[in-house]
């Protein structure tokens, strides 16, 4: 029930924010940073939130960091990037857009399940440079408290975003009527009425689209 609740909240905010990692990276390559800015702010706010969660008794049983395996991380990351570019969607996008009526997403979901099953026995060679847990994180590497590093990173990123601010629409490629068509964050199917108003609101409040998924993220717990 907890998983269903977390997933429903995540799917809801992802669909409302039209947050898709493929669109974020693709836009960034075209020097459009609307989604990127929202994601960056979401990540640093999430880092502070997670640091607080980890300090509570509830956080003691949670994963606090992933091992750093350079070969696997680089190869896996590149495969995910190529997969996103070919499918023109990310995994979370496949799921929430399937719920929003994109019937063809089921083909991508089947491919995704097949890919995971196909390589489940694969173990790439290469060292584990950093172990999991706190030692695999930047605070662990620096030997500093997680909350302190999270707050510092949040302050630096927030400051950079503040200096980098400007008309969100100019950086997003949003059209005059508010339907974000060129960023790739939406395929133009934003609907009428309320849906269009959401798209317009997203263009103005770039920070909200990333922050809501992140708030759901750390409410749900960290992930490998």
């Amino acid at each position, binding site marked *: 029930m907890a998983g269903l609740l977390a997933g429903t909240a995540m799917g809801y905010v992802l*669909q409302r924010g039209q947050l898709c990692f493929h669109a974020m990276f693709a836009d960034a390559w075209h020097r459009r940073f609307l989604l990127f800015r929202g994601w960056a702010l979401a990540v640093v706010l999430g880092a502070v939130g997670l640091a607080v969660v980890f300090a509570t008794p509830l956080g003691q049983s949670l994963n606090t960091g992933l091992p750093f395996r350079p070969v696997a991380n680089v190869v896996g990351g590149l495969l995910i990037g190529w997969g996103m570019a070919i499918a023109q969607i990310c995994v979370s996008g496949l799921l929430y857009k399937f719920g929003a009526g994109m019937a063809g997403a089921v083909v991508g979901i089947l491919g995704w399940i097949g890919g995971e099953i196909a390589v489940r026995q694969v173990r790439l060679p290469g060292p584990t440079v950093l172990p999991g847990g706190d030692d695999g994180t930047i605070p662990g590497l620096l030997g500093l408290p997680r909350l302190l590093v999270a707050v510092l990173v949040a302050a630096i990123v927030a400051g950079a975003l503040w200096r980098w601010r400007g008309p969100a629409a100019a950086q997003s490629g949003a059209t005059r009527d508010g339907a974000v068509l060129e960023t790739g964050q939406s395929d133009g199917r934003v609907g009428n009425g309320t849906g269009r108003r959401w798209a317009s609101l997203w263009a103005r409040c770039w920070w909200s689209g990333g922050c809501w998924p992140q708030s759901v993220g750390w409410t749900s717990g960290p992930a490998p």
Partner: protein
Amino acid sequence: MLAAVGGVDFGPSTVGAGAGAVAGDPNWWLIAFLLGIVGGGGIAARSSAAFELRGETRVRYLRLLVGGFLLGAGGWIAGGCNLGHGLSGMAQLNVSSIVVVICMALGVGHARAMTRPVSRTRTSAG
């Protein structure tokens, strides 16, 4: 927090659902989470009049299948997907997640550069 309530040590991620089920050790929290994303997307789309049942072109189906396969394989190898590394892992300040996210971005840029002529003909993109 909801993961802890559910008795598992992690939350938002897509990695492990398929492999766990095949291995006879399904992660029910994760499966429920993924089904919830579908349901949540549906609720959000219906409540904003954005729900539209639609199909794709043949080329798009092929791209979804091939791209989906790479997403699954890459997520397993990298130890996390775009949600796991890109949202939760980055918020954990993991060194591995930073590397994976950079490689994701490079992969998207490289593949888009290689497939640019095909991309211009796309009809529906995520």
